């Protein structure tokens, strides 16, 4: 795993335009890991030289091959949010049934796997709770297989596990759901590419500008340094923010282990409108 070592099976001179075909998995982990480290090293050197901190992922991140034709090449244009962007769609009790937060009871039997409870708080960039807002989650089963027609990984489907949940945060921004721990799964970015176990999250804030889709990971996963999706975030501290912590206070007696994962959305800009909230208030 030394950084200097070249992957011998990779023809040199082809690095300019890597093959992005999904069924092509010829490149070695060593090559991908080398690219991952090169990006991070350059980022660290830049930081030491005064470059700004990057809090999120790079859109242009060559080790994740599918980004090559899908990342914008022009800079994002700075925009002041206009009125509509300073509000978020509203979801309520009629949109989400409380039982949708339990991914282990959607079928007749119990899913196979380690039962887990995941709990955390959603706040905005000023630390204010995001109240009564929609959280959507989806994940692979304990064997690392998604209930999705495009997932061809030959691991077993679990007839008792779909892996989709929805919930609303409470009045203090807390969410909680029950599930089983997802397994890692292979993908076709390169030869022996395996994703660390993760749960996908979709979140709305108080403003449309805070909309985010992300992934929660589990502590201590040995696949972290090898995974070009986790590593799209070049800042090590920022990557840490995607890793849940084991929390014995959330663990339940003889039932499930507990994980805590708090989520911070980008800064809120609607403060000035706080007094002008619509009087209907039917989001309460």
């Amino acid at each position, binding site marked *: 795993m030394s950084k200097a070592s070249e992957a011998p099976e990779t023809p040199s001179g082809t690095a300019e335009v890597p093959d992005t075909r999904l069924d092509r998995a010829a490149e070695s982990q060593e090559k991908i890991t080398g690219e991952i480290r090169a990006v991070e090293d350059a980022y660290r050197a830049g930081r030491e030289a005064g470059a700004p901190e990057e809090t999120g992922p790079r859109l242009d991140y060559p080790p994740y091959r599918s980004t090559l034709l899908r990342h914008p*090449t022009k800079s994002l244009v700075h925009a002041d949010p206009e*009125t509509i962007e300073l509000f978020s769609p509203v979801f309520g*009790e009629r949109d989400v049934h409380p039982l949708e937060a339990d991914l282990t009871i959607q079928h007749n039997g119990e899913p196979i796997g380690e039962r887990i409870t995941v709990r955390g708080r959603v706040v905005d960039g000023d630390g204010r709770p995001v109240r009564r807002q929609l959280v959507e989650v989806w994940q692979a089963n304990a064997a690392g297989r998604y209930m999705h027609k495009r997932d061809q990984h030959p691991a077993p489907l679990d007839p008792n596990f779909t892996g989709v949940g929805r919930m609303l945060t409470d009045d203090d921004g807390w969410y909680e759901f029950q599930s089983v721990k997802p397994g890692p799964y292979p993908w076709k970015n390169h030869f022996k590419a395996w994703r660390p176990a993760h749960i996908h999250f979709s979140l709305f804030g108080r403003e449309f500008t805070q909309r*985010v889709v992300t992934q929660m990971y589990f502590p201590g996963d040995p696949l972290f340094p090898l995974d070009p999706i*986790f590593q799209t975030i070049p800042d090590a501290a920022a990557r840490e923010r995607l890793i849940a912590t084991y929390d014995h206070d959330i663990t339940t007696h003889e039932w499930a282990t507990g994980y805590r994962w708090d989520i911070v959305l980008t800064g809120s800009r609607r403060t000035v409108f706080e007094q002008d909230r619509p009087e209907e*208030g039917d*989001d309460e």
Partner: protein
Amino acid sequence: MSDLRPTPGQTVGPFFGYALPFERGPELVEPGTPGAIRLHGVVRDGAGTPIPDAVIEIWGAAPDGSVVQRSGGLLRDGTFTGWGRAETDAEGNYWFRTLEPGATAEGGAPFFAVVVFARGLPDRLFTRAYLPTPARETDPFLSGLGERRRTLEVQREPDGSLRFDIRLQGEDETVFLDFVEAARA
């Protein structure tokens, strides 16, 4: 502002199709609703190839310019909530049936706020789909974009539908927005 750093985004991945899309997600209004329009387009990559695994969400004001703050967006029980979600099909097409948003301020140029997610896209992209209105011609934000403003301009098709193509990369790359940096500036 505070010192809290945001939780980074991650790609929506390839396997959202059984999770994020929901029944009648693209249908913000029932067929035959007065004023109902079809907003549609193709999402393409840097090679011009349609992207079959993207998710598009729109968020728009009501026709009178008010911001709808009513629940029911996942329920589709006839309540217009201004928000919709569509996944692209095998040919990269998405579509919504909705109402044309009004201007939220006097003389403003009405637009749909749009967010794009896709496999191979490590974070969401925000953009705006501006309706074909006279106000659009003098909108200061659009004017500041020069030639690239065209990528944010919805076209009215001969059949009356509204077309908004999204290009993630390339010559006619859509203008994508950064609100956070603007907030810090």
